[in-house]
Structure formats: C-alpha cells, structure tokens
C-alpha cells in the first residue's frame, strides 16, 4: 500500500431490521474496535448479512444508529460512506476489465491519476498481468482477489467481507484465508467478515460474534468461544460438543459435583455459565478431542481426579491423523471421541468396552433450559 490508512471503529446502537412481521435482526449493540478483524458467524438466515449490509448502507435499519469513528452515518447512502464491501460471489462488473473494475471507486470520487495506484494494487494482489482481462475469464481465486483489490484501493476505514471465500474450493480457501490475514495486518483497516464457516472465522478473526435467529449468542476471541461456550448453539455450531444432562449435587472447593446417568463428574464453578443451585439441572459438555479412551481392562490405570464415564464403542473411522469414535454411554448415546493416532490400541474396535476420561478443567456447564441440539444442523448448508 502506498499510504497508510487507519481503520475506524464501528459502533452499532440498538440496531434492528424487520421485514413486515419478520425480524431479521433484533435490537443489537455491537462495538467493533478500530483495526480489528471481526467475524460475524452464523447459519444462513441468522441476520449476519443483514447486519453487514446495514453497516454498508445497502439496508436501512428499522431502528438504531450506525457510527463510524464516532460519526453517525445511519442516514448516509452507501456511496457516501468510507466503507467498502467484498460481495458474495464478488459482483465484478462484467462489462469492464479488471483494471477498470479496480479503478471504478477512484474514478467515481474524481481521482484523476488512477494509473499508478491501480497498477500497485494489482501488483499487491498479484494480478498485474491480467489488467486487461474481463472478469468472466478469470478463475474463482483471481476474481476474489480483484474484488478485494477493488474495495481496498479506496482506503476505506472499514472493509466488509460478505462470505468472500464461499465460492472457492477448500484448498484455495485456506490459501486466501492466509492472504486476507496478511493484507489486513499490512493495511491495518478494520475488517468485518461474514461467514457460515466456523473454521474460517476462527482462523482469521481476532473477535468472533456468533449469531443465531437475529441475535448475537456470544462474542469473544476464537479460543475463548471454543473452550468456554456459553450456549448450546455455540457449543454445537463451533466444532462438536458432547452434552450430557446433569444435576448439581454438591459444591466442593471451586468445583461443582454433578450427577449424570453415567456417574459423578466434576466441573470448575468458573466454567459454568448457568445459575448454580444445588439440586438444579445443568447441561455438561466436553469437546471430543479432550477425551482419552482406555480399554475397560485398563480402567485401573486411569489417574485419580479425572472425569470418567464407561461405554461401548459403536463406530470408529480412521482419518489418518486421528481416529474418530462414536461411543454409546449412559446419558449420551452418541459420545464423540477424537484420538490422535500416536500409539493405537488394537483392542479399540467397535463392540469394545471402554472408559472415557478427561481433565475436569475441560468440562463446561450450560443452562439446561435450552435445546440440546441447537446449532447441530449447520452441515446442511456448509460448503
């Protein structure tokens, strides 16, 4: 980039959008700090794209205000906002070549000497040789880079990305994720990224807001969200979780003692997002990769102090790096377990009796008054 551009922070106050009787976005307050890489993550129809389009000015909010770097821009039309968008499926102008696509924004703002800046921009995205091509004649990855270049050349304070990688195949997507991350670090602009791909959101963003049904379910750094989900939706949508119904029977020190159909489990009180009351119900969860699988014959070797549940292997699938098991256990008919393939125990085959055990610090507790399966259907729309 030729000149350093600084990002602005975005503040949404009580912003909402309704279409007739349908509420796409419930009143929402959100602060996106300047220079951050912020992801809005959720399934289709969760309101994430509508939120993005309200920041872009393409959608008029029903209530609330949009502030950019402290300035109220709610009533500004899109062409007067210092914000640019990388559209889903790119929306490159088919009647203009790559060069003119990239120069479009500069020309509209009356910049006269566009040549040098366009050429530099095309170099940055490694498309210098394609300046005179029509976008239809580029590959998906190249089109994506044109779309990014076309937006970035305007030095917006905020760059909005609407599922920018959805149309690419897996390998290219990984590559573009790194590239976008590099560009963001280089230009320092605030990026707001809408995606339904949880891996993409976690890899790229420093803050993720998980949206569901027009509301933000949880917001935080990717590792925080993953390790300490606050709702069943987040627990299931972000990776996989094993959730078991439990009852609080006791408190000892900093730990809660829980009773489940599979036995007693310990849960650090700080990792429980639900109100704690002896005799109250909870959903207790653990991620599949935190669990160690031991054959029932070795049950005696499991160290003290670990949470343990007995079960029987129902299925196993070998994935190279790891093996995924489905274990039938009391209170949880399909317990998922991922084991690294370091030293494989040949006895761990379907039908084998096993003990599942894990460090209680990896356990999390959720409010029991939620749908235990919320967020599990994301595979239907994931590419």
């Amino acid at each position, binding site marked *: 980039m030729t000149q350093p551009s600084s990002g602005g922070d975005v503040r949404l106050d009580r912003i909402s959008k309704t279409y007739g009787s349908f509420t796409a976005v419930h*009143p929402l307050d959100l602060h996106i*700090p300047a220079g951050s890489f912020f992801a809005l993550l959720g399934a289709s129809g969760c309101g994430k794209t509508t939120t993005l389009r309200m920041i872009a000015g393409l959608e*008029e909010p029903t*209530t*609330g205000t949009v502030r950019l770097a402290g300035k109220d821009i709610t009533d500004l039309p899109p062409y007067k906002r210092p914000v640019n968008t990388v559209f889903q499926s790119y929306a490159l102008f088919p009647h203009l070549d790559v060069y003119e696509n990239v120069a479009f924004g500069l020309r509209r703002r009356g910049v006269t000497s566009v040549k040098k800046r366009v050429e530099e921009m095309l170099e940055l995205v490694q498309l210098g040789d394609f300046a005179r091509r029509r976008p239809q004649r580029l590959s998906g990855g190249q089109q994506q880079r044109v779309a990014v270049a076309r937006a970035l050349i305007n030095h917006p304070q905020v760059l909005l990305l609407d599922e920018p990688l959805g149309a690419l195949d897996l390998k290219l997507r990984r590559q573009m994720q790194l590239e976008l991350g590099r560009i963001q670090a280089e230009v320092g602009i605030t990026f707001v990224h809408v995606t339904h791909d949880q891996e993409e959101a976690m890899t790229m963003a420093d803050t993720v807001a998980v949206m569901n049904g027009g509301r933000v379910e949880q917001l935080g750094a990717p590792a925080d969200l993953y390790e300490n989900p606050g709702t069943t939706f987040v627990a299931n949508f972000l990776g996989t979780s094993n959730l078991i119904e439990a009852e609080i029977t006791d408190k000892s020190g900093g730990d809660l003692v829980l009773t489940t159909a599979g036995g007693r489990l310990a849960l650090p009180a700080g990792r429980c997002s639900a109100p704690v009351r002896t005799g109250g119900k909870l959903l207790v969860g653990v991620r599949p990769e935190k669990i160690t699988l031991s054959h029932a014959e070795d049950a005696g070797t499991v160290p003290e102090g670990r949470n343990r549940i007995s079960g029987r292997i129902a299925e196993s699938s070998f994935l190279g790096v790891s093996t995924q098991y489905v274990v039938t256990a009391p209170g949880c008919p399909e317990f998922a377990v991922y084991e690294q393939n370091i030293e494989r125990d040949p006895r761990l085959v379907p039908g084998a009796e096993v003990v599942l055990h894990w460090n209680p610090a990896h356990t999390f507790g959720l409010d029991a008054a939620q749908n235990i399966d919320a967020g599990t259907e994301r595979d239907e729309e994931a590419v």
Partner: protein
Amino acid sequence: MATVTPDAPPADAPVQQAPVRRTAVRKRLVPYWLLLPGILWLLVFFAAPLVYQASTSVQTGSLEEGFKVTWHLQTYGDALSEYYPQFLRSVLYAATATVLCLLLGYPLAYLIAFRAGRWRNLLMVLVIAPFFTSFLIRTLAWKTILSDGGPVVGALGSLHVLDVTGYLEITAGQRVLATPLAVVCGLTYNFLPFMILPLYTSLERIDGRLHEAAGDLYARPVTTFRKVTFPLSMPGVVAGTLLTFIPASGDYINAELLGSTDQKMIGNVIQSQFLRVLDYPTAAALSFILMAAILAMVTVYIRKSGTEDLV
C-alpha cells in the same frame, strides 16, 4: 474490547421509533413514474381504441349522416351469417399453416441447436436475414415460384401430385396460384421464423448430457426424442404456435397476393369493409369477433398445454 448487550436498552436511551422517511415514499412512486408514459401510450392507442371499436360495432348510420350508438346487435348476427365461411377458412388456413410450420421448423431448430457445431451462427443468420427483405417482396416472389407453367408447377404436374391435390380440392387443374395450397404455402413461409426462433431458444437450453443420460438408460433415439427432448421443448412449441397462429389468422396479404376470391380470409373482409366499403360497424363487429375468438382459443390452449407461466 467488543461488547454486546442484546435486548437490554441502556436505561437513559429513548425508545427509538422508526421514522417514516420521506425518501421511502418517493421511492415507492418511482415505478409509476417509469410506467406512466409507456402505459399511457398503450392505454390511449391500444386499449381505448378497442373500447371505441366495441361501441362502433353497435352503431348504425352512414358516412354522410354520421354514426350513432343504437345498440344494433344485429350487426353481429349479420356479420357472422354473411362471413362465416371466411371465418372458418381463416381458422383452417391458420391452423394448417401452424402445423406445417411446426413440422418444418422443428427439424431446423433441432439442427441448429444440436447438430450445427460451428455453423450454428451462420444458420441463425440465414433464418433471420430474410426478415430484412420486405415480406411483401418475398411474398411476391412466391408468385414467380408458383407461376403457371413454371418449373415447380411443372414438376408437381408430371409427378401427378397436382392430380391428387386437385382431387382434394386444394389446387385447381394445372394451377397452384390462386388456390388454397398457394395461400397456405405463403402463410407457412411468412410465419416460419416466428416458429423457429422460440423453438430454438427452448431447445438450446436443453443440456446435451440429457440425451446421453436417456441413451444410457436404454432409450433409443426416437424414444429419447419423444420422452425427453420434445417435452422439454414444450415452452418453445407453445410460444411458436401462438406466434404463428395469431398473426396468420388475421392475415390478408397472402390471400390477396397468392389466392383468388375463393380464398379470402377474414382479414380481407375487415380490410375491404373498412377501407373500401367504409362500413365501419361491420368491420368493427368482425374484428371484435375475431379478437374474442382468438383470445378464447389462446386461453384454452395455454391452459391445456399447462404453460401458464409463459405470459
């Protein structure tokens, strides 16, 4: 750090009412401004004349004394009883020409869509280009092609085709001109491109792999056509037949140039009532009957063929 407080408004924040923006009202009027001039044009010069036509058809009077609305429905009865042969002939000729257009046009549309390869564009040009020579000139050329004693008539005569067609009363003696055959031949020729273009458009959309899939599933080429290609081209068939039948039924040029008084169609009657006899009520009644008949037939046809989304 980013913060989120879903649903809980800050205590001192006033409740936001969505203001009705003036831009929204102005935006809602945009389509009407866009429509206004064109729709006004159609209302004044297309719809209003039809209403006027309806009132004219129940007027009586003469050019000298002026016409008055007298609700003289007798005009309709008289027009029908006097000109029903021309009505029937119009429907018969137009229907025959439409069927012939379909039979002739389908192979060409199919050829261009699936078999032409790099010749596709050239063939399309050859289908469209004749449009640019005035169709009256081209219709007159048929007078030369079908002229008495010309090579076409000579060949048909020596092959005894004319004997057969003469027996069927679609030609007369050793002539083709001034017979039903000539008029239908001209109608077919004139409206053939209107059949080919929609057929081509719908055939071209068919994925060539469907043919392979049908073949893979044990369909012989004829079966593939009957069960896959033809059903998928139905929108084109319906559009093509309408685009052929409607103008053909009201045409009077082919009957005038290639036929004799025995081949007059309803268009000829309307034209001469209006422009020569100056009997406007009769002309109006006739064109109203024609319009009603065609709208009825088209509606039934579209319903039957199940392509209502065509409109």
